[in-house]
């Protein structure tokens, strides 16, 4: 594996906005989890979202493909506002890949079926074509040999890579990762991060909730720091990690960098 070096040229603002959140608010009962969130992600950009537990990072991710509804504000993907529940929303979700902390592979389907299902059911791709693409993607994430196994027979790192392949099979415009390595044993974290880094290099637009500083430094164009439901700070990774502006970020970094 060669040393990872991603060109992190700043992407010109407003050039080609893919994900746009405007003034988004969300409550869980009395809890104001997302407060006036404004966030724009350009095509090809890799954004790492970081922040203390309970700050609303997962909720933000889930709101972007509407697994969670929002109370006010607008979210649009590639110029189209998120539709209401129904067929149209399903179509839009297919364009937004999501990778979960707990993998969530379909337990009753083989690895191969996990990657073909969305293609055949949602994209209406033919079976042979879908399988061919699935095998290519499984090969790309390094689990081609496991194609006929069930998820429970795989290690966590392998499962997460299959989950990435499953999302990629839909040819998403943007990929959301919600702490993709938090449930993994340390020795498996890198195999997943490497796949993600490769994706970033290939130009995929990515929103990644993670505390992996190495990944943020090497693959992200921008770090978004959240606390208490707000975006407190946004900066390029080097600047954020070496010279955070807000006290919240300083405090948070001092805590996680100690370990």
């Amino acid at each position, binding site marked *: 594996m060669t040393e990872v070096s991603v060109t992190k040229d700043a992407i010109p603002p407003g050039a080609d906005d893919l994900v746009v959140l405007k003034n988004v608010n969300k409550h869980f009962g009395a809890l104001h989890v997302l407060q006036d969130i404004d966030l724009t992600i350009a095509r090809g950009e890799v954004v790492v979202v970081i922040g203390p537990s309970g700050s609303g990072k997962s909720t933000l991710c889930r709101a972007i*493909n509407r*697994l969670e509804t929002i109370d006010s504000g607008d979210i649009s993907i590639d110029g189209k506002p998120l539709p209401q*529940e129904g*067929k149209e929303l*399903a*179509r*839009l*979700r*297919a*364009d*937004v*890949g*999501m990778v*979960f902390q*707990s993998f*969530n*592979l*379909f*337990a*009753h389907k083989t690895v191969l079926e996990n990657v073909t*299902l*969305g293609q055949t*059911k*949602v994209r209406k791709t033919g079976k042979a074509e879908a399988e061919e693409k699935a095998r290519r993607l499984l090969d790309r994430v390094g689990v081609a040999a496991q194609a006929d196994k*069930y998820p429970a027979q795989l290690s966590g790192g392998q499962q997460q890579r299959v*989950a990435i392949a*499953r*999302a990629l*099979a*839909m040819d998403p415009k943007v990929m959301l990762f919600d702490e993709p390595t938090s449930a993994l044993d340390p020795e498996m974290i890198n195999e997943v991060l490497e796949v993600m880094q490769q994706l970033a290099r290939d130009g995929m637009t990515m929103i990644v909730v993670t505390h992996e500083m190495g990944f943020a430094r090497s693959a992200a164009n921008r770090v978004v720091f959240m606390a208490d439901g707000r975006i407190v700070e946004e900066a390029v990774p080097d600047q954020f990690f070496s010279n955070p502006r807000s006290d919240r970020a300083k405090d948070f970094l001092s805590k996680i960098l100690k370990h």
Partner: protein
Amino acid sequence: MRIAVRTGAGAPCPTTAAHEDIPVNVLLDHLAEFREGFIGTVWLTVASSVLALLLGVVLAGFRVSPVPPLRFFGAAWVTLFRNTPLTLLFLTIWFAVPQVFDFGFDPWTKALIVLSVYTSSFVCEAVRSGINTVPLGQAEAARSIGMTFFQTLGSIVLPQAVRTVLPPLSSIFIALTKNSAIAGAFSVTELFGWQKVLSDQGFAIAWLFLWVALGYLVITFTISGLFRLLERSLEVAR
């Protein structure tokens, strides 16, 4: 209308009295009727099972759907039919419904409707609790790749719920078999009704009951056997 409980033995038929104390003869001499009753029960049970299963699964889908009116409909259906005595439902469709609108259904169809509707409420709840055992992440993953609600339910959630749903379904269908006896009291040809015809003729009730009970046992054993086979085949599949 023959639901009135008969008092006294009616008019015992003198010509059949000779057979009375030989139980096998009761069965053999009336084998054709017994078989007709047996088949009636099997047929009514199978047809209502299929209908109740379809209805129940659809209702369970309603109950977990994102559409509030559907959820309400499912909940109302279950509350109404699960909590009403079956006999009352029979009486309703036999006597009350025709007063409002006479569909002109024959007794068999009426029995099918009552048994299916009643049983569907139990199937719905069994399926729904099965759905609840499937981790939420499974449905979220399905939705996140763009599957619709029905695709998610049909290809991801229900297949994983099946294994937990089978044992309660088995009990529900056994209960349905026995509940179909009520249809006999409403002049539908089935196993239990056979007993009544003969006991009216003066045959020893105890022996008739034994044969009838054995008839039901054959059906219910078959059901639980089939379900056990199904459960085992699902275990092997993974």
